[in-house]
């Protein structure tokens, strides 16, 4: 993945969307596009095929995606195709999403627990995190019995590992030496 290009494209879209105050709309639509592309791999196959002409690809895009798609996103897709960067779509969407969340001061937090958390616990966690990180929290939960107990909270390149498994491992390392 060419990260520099990804960043540039995402930022370009972001700046445009911001200018047009269409951030929320763009975010929503872009996410929809990504899901569609993941769901129907034929889209990528067609667009990435070099024997099909640019005009045909653009035509195809317009037809295949829902008609209520924002103009901005559509133009962006066409531009991507023209610059032969379509295969970076997923990465660009992720980067855009990241920029969006930062702008909106939303932090995405992933929590892994051994058994699924009770809703009250979830709420409590969201509140605590909100206070600590001073921004909106979008919580994604996951259960993994491997961790044996406790939880692992991950966000923005940081991790708080309070799982039993890791603690046992740390204890074992300490005892080993």
């Amino acid at each position, binding site marked *: *993945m060419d*990260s*520099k290009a990804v*960043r540039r494209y995402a930022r370009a879209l972001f700046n445009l969307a911001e200018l047009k105050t269409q951030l929320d709309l763009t975010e929503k639509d872009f996410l929809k596009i990504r899901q569609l592309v993941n769901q129907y791999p034929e889209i990528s196959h067609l667009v990435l095929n070099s024997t099909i002409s640019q005009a045909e690809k653009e035509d195809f895009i317009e037809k295949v995606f829902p008609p209520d798609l924002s103009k901005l996103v559509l133009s962006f897709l066409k531009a991507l195709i023209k610059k032969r960067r379509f295969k970076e779509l997923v990465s660009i969407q992720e980067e855009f999403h990241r920029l969006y969340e930062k702008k909106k001061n939303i932090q995405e937090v992933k929590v892994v627990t051994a058994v699924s958390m009770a809703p009250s616990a979830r709420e409590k966690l969201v509140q605590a995190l909100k206070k600590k990180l001073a921004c909106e929290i979008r919580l994604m939960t996951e259960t993994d019995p491997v961790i044996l107990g406790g939880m692992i909270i*991950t966000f923005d*390149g*940081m*991790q*708080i*590992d*309070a799982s039993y498994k890791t*603690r046992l491992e740390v*204890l074992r390392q*300490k*005892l080993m030496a």
Partner: protein
Amino acid sequence: MLKPEEVTQAIQKEIQKYETKLQMESVGYVLQVGDGIARVYGLEEVMASELVTFPDQTAGLALNLEPDNVGVVILGPDRNIKEGDAVKRTGRIVEIPVGTALLGRVVDPLGKPLDGQGPIATTKTRFLETIPPSVIQRQPVKEPLQTGIKAIDAMIPIGRGQRELIIGDRQTGKTAILIDTILNQKGGNVFCIYVAIGQKLSSVVALAETLKKYGAMEYTTIVCASSEDPAPLQYLAPYAGCAMGEEFMYTGKHALVVYDDLSKHAVAYRQLSLLLQRPPGREAFPGDVFYLHSRLLERAAKLREDLGGGTLTALPVIETQLGDISAYIPTNVISITDGQIYLESDLFYAGVRPAINVGLSVSRVGGNAQTKAMKQVAGMLRLSLAQYRELAAFAQLSTDLDKATKDQLTRGERMVEILKQDVFQPLAFEQQVIVIFAGNEGLLDDLPLNRLKAFETGLLEFVDKKHHYVLHEIREKKAISDDLKKKMKDAVNQFKQEFT
């Protein structure tokens, strides 16, 4: 004695002490992995050369800090590392266990034992990369490191704290010199560390067996990063050996570390750098390949007395191609070390073994590291050998020679003959003095060349049995008085009579 209750109590205490505190750590995710390199996304605050861990407890070294990812070299097999694995910082740099518990062991560059003789029971560790002693902390080299090889101890003497490069083509006897030097430290106070970089595992095993056979493993450690080990481990191996040696040096003891060989070390580092996409320079080596070796070799020194007076002597080995000592890596290392010993294949095949080219070999510490006795007998040896060589070339052309020239030729031939030595047979310094003395005084001039070897062996045995006080005096006084000279002459003449 060993009491299991002690152990269980210690463990219990540890467990009770263990408190869990919530900690926030920096994590990253593996973007791609292959060829021993992992590209990690995240790890925002990782520092250069910091140790990081993968989920399967393999260690990695964060060498490339790029804007959007970190290039981590994997210190071990990369079989169990997948894309998406979490990578955690450790906040430490690489360190290995050091101390006397390592003597007699074979370890890898991270300190893991490879000889199956149980764990390394030591609590002391040292960092692989340290700053060498400063100018103030050093003092000039003044004690000899006896290699047991006549040609070296007489004409290219090595001192404790010196760096002497051993350079030559393949199969010229470089490792043999190293082994002889290590064997000769038996009964001395020098600890030896042999670092095997990129060699065949079978060679390292054979070497360990040889050392064990001659009783040298008691004071030797072998650090092994063979050719099957990943390049990062080969890259770290010399620094690991150096750290072990430094432990002895900073505690006032003497150590000898031997790097066999640095050419393969440079190649491993080149592999690493190219895979990390660092720009290649001359011969595709990265730009800092000089720094790679200079920071390693600068750590060999003799410390001041008030810091313990310990020494670390380094004997790096470089393999040249077709005797080309002006290639990139050889010239680099030559300019770093305090002298070099050239081994030539021509001399080797002509039967001169050790195949040392005395004219081109030099030791910049030289006479300061020689005992007075050796200086007395071998002072003019180098010069006279050089003269003999010139004369020999000239004498091949003309057949009619005057007596003086003939004598010089005879003397020269005999000196060359007694400087030959078999492998695994290092000589004690007093024995060397006797043999070279005999040659110098012309006492061998009338013996046929092909019997000189037998004469030498016989002479040493004879002097040991019947004139032991001569050896004793040389060993104790380390200088040759006129009286002793006479005694030595008498002894040699006596044996000569018996011999013929």
